């Protein structure tokens, strides 16, 4: 039976829906067990990331679609009616194609992002250790991981910067030689700052100072990211003593102004200062960007960088699609070969049976005549099989038709 994939992704469901079906790492082993033991699938793998929750399964009889729905309903009973309309299903070749495209990054929110390969590899490892991966998953997933690697090395799909978060890191990388020692100052402590710190803080591990109008919020955010809080009135001084400044507040007037920052920055020496103004309206006076050694970028600049990267990556889609198509054809060919092996074996056994019964029926042969007949009929069987087997493997003739023609029972379907 073929591979089936069911689930939802950023293509079919908004974040508010996706997060309801998202599975935490600690939930996965139990969910895998349920997929195979309760939902009745022969094999199963769960890929759960922030942008997709998908199950890859091999059904064994019954209605696989109903079984997949029943599995999701069992996972999130209360939310199922709302989730149901967002769930997609692909079967057979379409499921394998989807798997390859996911690994290649063609289905990712940020085209070509590399994380998905690691996530898929971890999901496969988990399915293997849980004993829910079988022959179909063992064939399809490692091949998909190879496709993902090939797409990233042979095309520009993963090259450059294609997200706003990546743009902020990219800018810091183009200013500072060693980002890991850089210190950060924030002006504001809201959600935008928190999101930016999630991306930048693991890379810039120097001192962190969070300035905010509300000290409690500043202290909470500082504690979360291993920093210290400071009053908003000290913003210019704190900024001038840092390497990277991230500003995002709801203030209607700029908080960081050139007249105040200028004299402080002059004392920094040759060390550059990167200022990321993510606030709308702006929190940093545009003249700050004119100060020597200060590099000011707004949210629009980050969007321009990300947009340009996305366009460059989009231009690489045809090359990536070609690699996926090639891998899919190769996978199908290999699959046909494997699928036809039991039929070829049955054909050989059937032919040998016919040969044996024909030879047994001949009573009047001498020993030497029998040996010659065995040799000739053996060669005949061999030659017939050598002509038929490649055609059965490449799909030119259907193995079942050949077996029917010879009156041989078809072997049971095997994965």
């Amino acid at each position, binding site marked *: 039976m073929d591979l089936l994939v069911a689930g939802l992704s950023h293509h079919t469901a908004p974040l508010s829906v996706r997060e309801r079906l998202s599975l935490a790492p600690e939930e996965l082993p139990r969910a895998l067990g349920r997929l195979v033991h309760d939902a009745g699938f022969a094999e199963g793998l769960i890929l759960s990331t922030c942008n997709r929750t998908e199950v890859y399964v091999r059904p064994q009889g019954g209605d696989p679609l109903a079984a997949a729905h029943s599995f999701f309903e069992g996972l999130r009973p209360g939310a199922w009616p709302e989730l149901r309309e967002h769930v997609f299903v692909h079967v057979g070749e379409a499921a394998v194609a989807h798997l390859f495209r996911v690994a290649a990054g063609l289905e990712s929110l940020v085209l070509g992002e590399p994380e998905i390969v690691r996530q898929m590899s971890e999901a496969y490892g988990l399915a293997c250790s849980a004993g829910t991966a079988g022959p179909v998953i063992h064939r399809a997933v490692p091949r998909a991981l190879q496709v993902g690697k090939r797409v990233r090395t042979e095309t520009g799909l993963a090259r450059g910067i294609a997200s706003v978060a990546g743009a902020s890191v990219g800018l810091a*990388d*183009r200013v*500072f030689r060693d980002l890991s020692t850089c210190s950060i100052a924030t002006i504001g402590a809201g959600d935008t700052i928190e999101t930016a710190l999630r991306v930048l803080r693991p890379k810039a591990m120097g001192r962190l100072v969070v300035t905010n109008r509300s000290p409690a919020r500043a202290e909470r955010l500082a504690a979360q990211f291993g920093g210290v809080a400071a009053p908003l009135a000290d913003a210019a001084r704190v900024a001038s003593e840092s390497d990277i400044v991230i500003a995002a507040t709801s203030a209607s007037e700029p908080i960081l102004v050139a007249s105040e920052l200028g004299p402080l920055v002059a004392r920094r020496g*040759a060390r550059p200062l990167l200022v990321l103004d993510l606030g709308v309206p702006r929190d940093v006076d545009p003249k700050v960007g004119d100060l020597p050694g200060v*590099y000011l970028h707004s949210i629009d600049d980050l969007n321009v960088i990300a947009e340009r990267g996305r366009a460059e990556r989009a231009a690489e889609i045809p090359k990536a699609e070609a690699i996926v198509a090639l891998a899919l054809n190769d996978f199908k060919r290999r699959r046909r070969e494997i699928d036809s092996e039991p039929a070829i074996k049955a054909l050989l056994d059937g032919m040998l049976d016919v040969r044996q019964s024909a030879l047994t029926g001949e009573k009047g042969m001498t020993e030497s005549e029998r040996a010659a007949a065995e040799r000739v009929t053996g060669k005949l069987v061999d030659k017939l099989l050598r002509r038929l087997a490649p055609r059965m493997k490449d799909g030119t003739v259907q193995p079942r038709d050949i077996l029917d023609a010879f009156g041989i029972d078809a072997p049971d379907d095997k994965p």
Partner: protein
Amino acid sequence: MEALIRLLAALTPAAWTAAAAAYLVLFLRQDAGAARWAPRLGWTAVAIHLLALGAPGARGICPMLLPGSMVSGLGLAVGAVHLFVEGRVKDRAIGFFPIATAAVFAIAGASVDPLHLPNGPLPPASTAIHVTGAILGYAGLLLAALFGVLYLVQQNALKQHKFGLFWERLPSLELLDSFSRRSLVAGVVFLTMTIGFGHAVRRNLALGESYWDAKIVATNLIWLLGAIVVVARLVNRIRPAASSFASVGLFVLALANLLVVDVFSKVHRGI
């Protein structure tokens, strides 16, 4: 032997061009294969170049005193110094620019017949040390100017928000500044040694007592300006951008010294 000298002289620019092509692929495509091959090709070019420069020695001619080898020696110095520095820094992103420069000098050097000897008697062999020091000094100034230009390009991209091809492929401002500053220091150090050595051996070179020689004056002026920039950076009196501009200016002066002053003064009166 002559055939070997000519073969090595022809192989040298080809080797540098191949290395520059690999670095160009690396710069444009950030290709893993190019990252592996580019430095290998670069060091191969260095080896071939050294053999090419040394080969005339087998005929009893001090290599660095031949006109072609002086020009191509500058390319060798630029390429070798950069390959050494990038190996230490472990960043090959900007290798194309110095390696292509080395290729240009190698090609220019190869345009002169490797067996062509200048008219008149060759200067004494001790001059080779003086010339080699000067070439290394000028190579330092050239690299400082090259990295200075790249610094200014990257700075302009970041200041003016011009996120084109260069922005993403060039390394950080701090790294470019570090490359430029160190190259300038190396250039000034080599020039100091060259000037000192030149002073020590001037009697042997029959230059007389007078220091009013266009070449000496121009070289000392370049050295003085270079030293001022190095010290100013050391005590944080000028910013990296100003230092980059100064490096470019110093190289322009050095080039003028090599081309204009040499032509009019015949590379020191008396030699």
